[in-house]
């Protein structure tokens, strides 16, 4: 476990932006980029780009089995990153950190490996109505093989989980509670510690989809007592092509391997194999070496600024955005008020389809998302075919929000 170092309490986005080369880009001639789509993927600081660049220029080699100097250097860097990432989320042991491709694969790994080995027909899995598709479809696929029962913690009109209904579901002997720490649509931060505590009391394990949480605030898997915890590098200033699964050692140890191949074995004969120790047991084949090193640099970058500082900045910005959006006639905000959320503002705009909103904003360099944001059930529940989503991160500033509001008035003008 590691204390979060807050080097200063207030962040200067002006200075931060200098760390991100993409902000020197003109998105159209003369129009700078205003990036409000970090919930889809974050931008990357120079430190991360250069770490990978340096890896390829100076120490690229396959890891683990090599004796030559390059292979040793590469292995040492790779494992040092694993340790840094473990520290970042407060994991007690670095071999509880498994590298995958993305959050989606992390969740699928648990469904395939833990799920098939431990679940049987009729077993209950509790999810929520605000899940991203990546925490729905793996369980649906598993249900089509083992006849599981999926139940959902309802989302109320405010965009919060109904914990009373959750407690009722818990009386039905659930095996797993798998839920998002922070919604990528409405921004709700769910009370993960309480949800996990209640699940454990009911005898269930827990999986936390932390894809949006880890980028936005300090997390500690030991304090949360999370059993599984999944997130993506690309949303937290790291490279694409890399996800993380944290699992408690005892659970991971007892699970059968998922993908088979090199590195995840100790011995192989023609018709049998013995599995390797953690974490390698779950890392089959040549891993995403450069990407792991890139995520190590990302974690260092975020740590240097301080996750509490980042969280405070994003919260202030989101509060300002919600306030200003409410002023715009025809805008309807989707989701809870600022106390319960971070980083995301989703809305509809009367008479204008989100696609049109997004496209007109794009002319002013404003990058926002339009659609169902991989959460069709949540949209369906609120009878919204699609929403427009602006999301904020450490490099955004109030002026970005002001430009968004100006842009929305232009939309109104065109479609009014």
């Amino acid at each position: 476990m590691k204390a979060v170092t807050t080097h200063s309490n207030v962040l200067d986005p002006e200075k931060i932006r200098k760390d991100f080369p993409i902000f020197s880009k003109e998105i159209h001639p003369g129009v700078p980029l205003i990036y409000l789509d970090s919930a889809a993927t974050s931008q990357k600081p120079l430190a991360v780009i250069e770490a990978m660049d340096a890896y390829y220029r100076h120490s690229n080699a396959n890891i683990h089995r090599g004796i030559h100097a390059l292979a040793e250097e590469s292995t040492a860097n790779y494992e040092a990153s694993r340790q840094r990432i473990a520290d970042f989320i407060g994991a007690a042991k670095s071999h509880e950190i498994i590298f995958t491709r993305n959050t989606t694969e992390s969740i699928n790994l648990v469904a395939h490996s833990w799920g098939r080995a431990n679940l049987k027909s009729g077993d209950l899995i509790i999810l929520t109505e605000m899940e991203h598709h990546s925490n729905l479809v793996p369980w649906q696929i598993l249900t089509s093989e083992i006849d599981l029962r999926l139940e959902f913690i309802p989302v109320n009109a405010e965009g919060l989980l109904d914990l009373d209904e959750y407690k009722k579901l818990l009386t039905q002997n659930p095996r797993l509670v798998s839920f998002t720490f922070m919604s990528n649509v409405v921004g709700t931060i769910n009370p993960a510690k309480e949800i996990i505590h209640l699940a454990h009391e009911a005898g269930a394990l827990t999986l936390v989809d932390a894809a949006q949480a880890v980028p936005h605030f300090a997390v500690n898997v030991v304090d949360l007592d999370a059993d599984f915890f999944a997130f993506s590098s690309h949303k937290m200033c790291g490279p694409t092509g890399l996800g993380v699964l944290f699992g408690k050692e005892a659970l991971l140890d007892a699970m059968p391997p998922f993908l088979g191949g090199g590195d995840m074995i100790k011995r192989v004969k023609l018709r049998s194999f013995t599995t390797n120790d953690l974490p390698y047991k779950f890392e089959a084949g040549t891993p995403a070496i450069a990407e792991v090193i890139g995520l190590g640099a990302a974690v260092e970058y975020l740590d240097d600024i301080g996750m509490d500082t980042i969280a405070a900045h994003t919260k202030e910005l989101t509060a300002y955005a919600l306030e200003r959006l409410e002023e715009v006639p025809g805008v309807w905000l989707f989701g809870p008020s600022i106390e319960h959320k971070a980083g995301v503002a989703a809305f509809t705009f009367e008479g204008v389809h989100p696609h049109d909103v997004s496209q007109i904003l794009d002319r002013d360099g404003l990058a926002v998302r339009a659609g169902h944001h991989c959460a069709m059930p949540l949209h369906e529940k609120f009878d919204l075919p699609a929403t427009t989503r602006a999301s904020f991160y450490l490099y955004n500033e109030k002026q970005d929000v002001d430009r968004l509001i100006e842009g929305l008035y232009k939309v109104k003008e065109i479609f009014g």
Partner: protein
Amino acid sequence: MDDLYRELIIDRYKNPQFRGELEPADISYHDDNPLCGDKIRIDLRVDENDIVTEAVFSGHGCSISLASADLVVESILGKTLDEVKEMDKEMVLELLGIELGPVRLKCALLSLKVLKAGVYGLGEGESSDDLVA
């Protein structure tokens, strides 16, 4: 991309010329774009020579999908069903008169997809992007 919202599109979106439903219709088909929830239905009547005599659309969506539905439906009046089967992506883009990115292209082509699925007599849910490839 700047002429995306050229007057024609906004105008057709706000004041569609061929919005409606035909009951009964000779051909009726509907489909949606799950990405954005856009839904389009197209109804046709044809004469004994398989020439389209009436054509209307209904549904909801963004300006591109609705304007393109209005323009596509207009463009087929007087055409034979075989001619409609020959219609492709380029014809729709020409009607719209704009360049489109991959996501908006799906919006623009939804009406053509619905139209061709109907004309080919496909069953519900059988339409496919191959029709407008």
